[in-house]
């Protein structure tokens, strides 16, 4: 299919010590160009590992097999130098904790410049202009260009991370729980911003979250992960309205609905095991 920008085939992630201990089990996932795909799951389900595999940022204690095709090129066959050229330029990533992802002793302007300079050579004036443009896009007043990360709020820091991530107009943006640490109102703003950027720049997004509410707001497609497996995937409408897999159903029952009508049902893992055979 031509409109798949990223194709993950039979990806396995396992520990070096014991290759039978699989953390990601033979998953396959296609990302459609210009769409947002959400990976949903509990902690330990392997959703972050999947994202890190694409970026090839896995811990050296882990190994992987399978293939990840990005625009027809298998990322797993690239040399370190080749993948570094794509990282940040073609594929960018934002993380959950904006405070730990920014350098506290450098101004935000400098850090955004740095992200651009890795991939592009620009004159000082052009560079500054570009940074100001980016700040505008993500909604930070340009006079904050010389601010340090600790002078910004959590939401603003995440906006800086987004500015860095989109600085080289990536084709794929991986967002690993980017709003989990934020207040609800700020979360809503950041989700809107990401969605607008996606539409404006035809960006593809891989969005990792454990919150089905967020999925409902932002996703086009959904993949549900459970213990290293993708147990269900499909369009957001089909997965949320008509879940097929018992785990998806159980996980949806845990989500507090905004009406408060249904009782929260914790997952009964033994019943789930039986249902899954």
């Amino acid at each position, binding site marked *: 299919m031509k409109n798949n920008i990223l194709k993950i085939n039979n990806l396995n992630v396992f520990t070096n010590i014991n290759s039978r201990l699989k953390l990601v089990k033979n998953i396959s996932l296609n990302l459609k160009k210009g769409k947002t795909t959400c990976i949903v799951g*509990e*902690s330990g389900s392997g959703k972050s590992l999947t994202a890190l595999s694409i970026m090839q940022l896995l811990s050296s204690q882990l190994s992987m097999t399978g293939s990840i095709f990005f625009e027809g090129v298998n990322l797993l066959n690239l040399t370190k130098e080749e993948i570094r050229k794509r990282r940040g330029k073609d594929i960018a990533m934002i993380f959950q904790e904006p405070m730990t992802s920014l350098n506290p002793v450098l101004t935000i302007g400098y850090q955004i410049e740095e992200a651009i300079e890795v991939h592009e050579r620009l004159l000082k004036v052009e560079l500054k202009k570009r940074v100001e443009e980016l700040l505008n896009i993500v909604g930070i007043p340009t006079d904050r260009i010389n601010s340090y990360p600790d002078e910004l709020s*959590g939401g603003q820091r995440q906006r800086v991370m987004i500015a860095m991530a989109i600085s080289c107009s990536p084709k794929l943006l991986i967002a690993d729980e980017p709003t989990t640490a934020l*207040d*609800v*109102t*700020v*979360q*809503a703003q950041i*989700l*809107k911003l990401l*969605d607008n950027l996606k*539409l404006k720049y035809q960006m593809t997004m891989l969005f990792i979250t*454990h*919150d*089905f*509410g*967020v999925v*409902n*707001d932002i996703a086009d497609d959904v993949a549900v992960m459970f213990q290293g497996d993708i147990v269900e995937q499909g369009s957001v409408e089909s997965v949320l309205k008509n879940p097929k897999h018992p785990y998806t159903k*159980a*996980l949806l*029952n*845990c*989500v*507090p*609905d*905004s*009406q*408060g009508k249904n*009782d*929260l*049902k*914790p*997952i009964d893992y033994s019943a789930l095991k039986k249902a899954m055979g």
Partner: protein
Amino acid sequence: MQMENLLEAKNLSKEYVKTAGFFSRTRTSIKALDNISINIKKGITLAVVGESGSGKSTLAKSLIRLVELDKGSIIFKEKNMRTIKGDDLKRTRKNIQMIFQDPYASLNPRMKIIKIMEEPLQIHGIGNSATQYAKILCMIKRVGLVEADLSKYPHQFSGGQRQRIGIARALILEPELVICDEPVSALDVSVQAQIVQLLKSLQKEFGLTYLFITHDLRIVRHIANEVIVMKDGKLIEKGKTDIIFRKPKTKYTKELLASIPGNLSKRK
């Protein structure tokens, strides 16, 4: 029907003053609590909702005097919390227990669970070692753990299990009021559902009153009878949960409700 108030707090104010910089003489002050009055009725769950920095945790801490107020009065079971001292304070504090947000940070990593559970009983001189053990065992089973867990250390448990231990520790003293400071915010949705259900069933069983602090309005809908909304140290709105959700009066509450994930207007 007028329900009995377990706690009445009037005009609570607290200001934090900080100097702008190391050499600076200018001082800025932040009103963490700005003339807040609340009543907590016996046997209900009152949720305090607000964003970070709204003063909701300061409010909770001030009720058990972990934060000393500048102004205001707190009457708990006909005792003035702000003036009582010594044994009286100790006895009252036994009656108000707290469950914290971070189950990783609120349990001493060097103590076995049995020690963590014994400590509050010893401090308040309740029972002898045999009756204490029986009591602890009963409580730990009630929150879904087993006897063998008592000889383990906190790091051997998952986040949800640790929060169960935190709940058991708070309830072992048989308090009437339990202050829950974001008890499920750090947990996965599936674990969150377990803990919310546990808190609800314990409330029924022991007739507890909860002051439930959270920023997650979806949880509020599931657990609270009444809600107060805070912003910048001020009380913005209060009322029955159902009414706040269906007919919010203030712009801020409406904004909060619109921000609930799953409520954003979809672009399609």
